[in-house]
């Protein structure tokens, strides 16, 4: 197993009854790089995500996560919350899932639940007000404040998350995922519904997460301007199988990819390409 890959997906298959959503999909995500998973609607991208983050149990195949220290975790064997807790994989959702009735700061505090639980002696020490817990809580607030600054929401820290504008909610959800201090950050369409300026800010944020913190990112995205700008590697899916992968430039010129997006045959796509160039 190569050390520069954080995630290795091997022959992943997911069936729902008779429907095969993902078939024999193999790809890997490089450490400290941004890997994008793209494809037309219904290609099975979110299914792959749900398998990686433990919301679905794959019908077949393996998903291996290799941490910086060489520790390898078999994600297909862990279920739901353990993937976030033990394997350090954090995710966001296509339809934003914040805690709308809690403030932005509280959202980020909930993300640090496991660390704070240990610090509070599983509630008992915290209940009697042990100083160790108070320090841990202060550190948690500092981390949350730091993230609020990064996503430019510091002045709204005490506002309910449900009151935030759509773009702000998207950024807050990324900040919340990052507060779990993940090794791999999975983003499900982070740029959906954002305007051009917000998309640009998002690209900047993701690049800073990669460059400054060294967190590996796996993202699903439809906004090609974002994908082409920030991705180091792109995997293209259609109808549950991988049809291409490579650098943004390679993928952009791949006839299979264009055919899939146009919903046409490969020959037609090639004809379109030639005609256009």
């Amino acid at each position, binding site marked *: 197993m190569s050390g520069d890959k954080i995630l290795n997906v091997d022959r992943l298959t997911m069936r729902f009854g008779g429907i095969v959503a993902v078939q024999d999909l193999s790809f890997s995500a490089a450490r400290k790089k941004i890997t994008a998973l793209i494809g037309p609607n219904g290609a099975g991208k979110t299914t792959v995500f749900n398998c990686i*983050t433990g919301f679905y149990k794959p019908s077949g195949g393996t998903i291996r996560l290799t941490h910086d220290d060489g520790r390898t975790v078999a994600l297909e064997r862990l279920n739901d919350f353990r993937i976030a807790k033990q394997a350090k994989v954090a995710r966001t*959702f296509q339809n934003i*899932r*914040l805690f709308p009735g*809690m*403030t932005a700061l509280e959202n980020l*505090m909930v993300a*640090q*639940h496991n660390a704070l639980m240990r610090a509070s002696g599983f509630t008992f020490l915290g209940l009697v007000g042990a100083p160790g817990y108070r320090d841990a809580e202060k550190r948690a607030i500092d981390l949350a404040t730091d993230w609020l600054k990064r996503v430019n929401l*510091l002045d709204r820290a005490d506002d309910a998350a449900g009151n935030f504008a759509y773009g702000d909610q998207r950024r807050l959800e990324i900040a919340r995922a990052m507060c779990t201090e993940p090794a791999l950050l999975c983003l499900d369409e982070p740029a959906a519904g954002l305007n051009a300026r917000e998309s640009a800010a998002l690209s900047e944020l993701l690049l800073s997460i990669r460059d400054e913190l060294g967190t590996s990112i796996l993202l699903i995205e439809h906004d090609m301007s974002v994908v082409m700008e920030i991705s180091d590697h792109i995997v293209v899916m259609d109808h549950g199988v991988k049809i291409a992968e490579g650098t943004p430039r390679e993928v952009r010129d791949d006839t299979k990819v264009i055919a899939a997006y146009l919903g046409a045959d490969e020959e037609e796509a090639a004809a379109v390409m030639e005609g256009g160039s």
Partner: protein
Amino acid sequence: MKAPSTHTAKTATGIPALLKTAFINALVALVLFSLMVGIRTEAGASGQLTYWTRFGDLASLVAAVFGGSIVIELLRQWIGPIGAEKLVPPAVRSGMSFLGRFVAPALLIFTLLVPVIFYNQRYILDLAILVLTYVMLGWGLNVVVGLAGLLDLGYVAFYAVGAYSYGLLATNFGWSFWICLPLAGILAAFWGVLLGFPVLRLRGDYLAIVTLAFGEIIRLVIINWQDLTGGPNGVSGIPRPSFFGIPLDNSDDGLAAKLGIEYSPTHRIIFLFYLILALALLTNWATIRLRRLPIGRAWEALREDEVACRALGINTTTTKLTAFATGAMFGGFAGAFFATRQGFISPESFTFQESALVLAIVVLGGMGSQLGVALAALAMIGGFELFRSLEGYRMLVFGMAMVLIMIWRPRGLIGHRAPTVYLTKAQAISSDLVKEGHG
């Protein structure tokens, strides 16, 4: 109260609308009541139709509707949704919110002084103890329903477990109240976890039904397990609580004799009063404390979005179980108190009606709000006593009151949520944003 002149423009736009609403309401009342009240018909002596008019009554009814709708409209705008046009001058409103901050401390001081003020009024003391018992039950259930968002219709089961734990341990082994109290809490928490396990996967209506069934199962087991629980005859002769070993009675060892004061049966009542007050305040303190700990935040996060919780690595199973166990533990404490206060317990005290009443208190008070639950318990239990003279109409009055409150304040008396942590300023969160939980 006169509005400051700067606000007259704002008020003026509202007053015609207000009068218009009141006028329409009065008109509807006039049409309705003119036949129902205005003209009275009756069969005369020889079977002919006799009628007479009661325009005086009609006029007073219509006037009452007119005045009432103005008052209601003002109240509605006062406490109604944020952003609605306000007719009440801001000075009054800021004064009210200023007073609002002192409601809880004032209520606490008053409660502490109740035995002093009403020393010789046994009825009021008994009522106060009853209200406090329900305040405690409400606060206990609030952890499960208000914070974790798990609808529990069988809360009375834990109350029963607590009561029977104390009753049986005390009558069979002669253990003291102060040893049995924590045991009752632990046993109830244990049953809370037992209930929690099978219902973890259930949500909403399904969860409610299973918890409802659980409450009934506990009651039926108590009725049918005659060897242990005495069945429908209940457990009698449950010892009264002692003041840390010193009995509160007429004997030479009694507290009165030791303190050298004259014995009075009121001492015991006052002791019970402060006991339940202490237990209720313990519940309140623990809940407020827990809310600010990671576990409490996880409960609230669970209410807001369970899937997101799992994505953040929160073990939703243990989080739900701890909520059930914590709520059940407080129910168990209250049950032990109930047993020692009554001296006799039977399955009749633990019917579904009790669960429904406690749940109504939590919902009416505003799910998650400690002060709201206390006020709702006071209103419900106190109100029940207040309207005792109405006999059969009592429930009717209560049903109407609940419907009205749910129309005006669909999220309970105190509907907003206070954040558990803040950077610069704690802002109340509007109830529109706070989720009720999925079950």
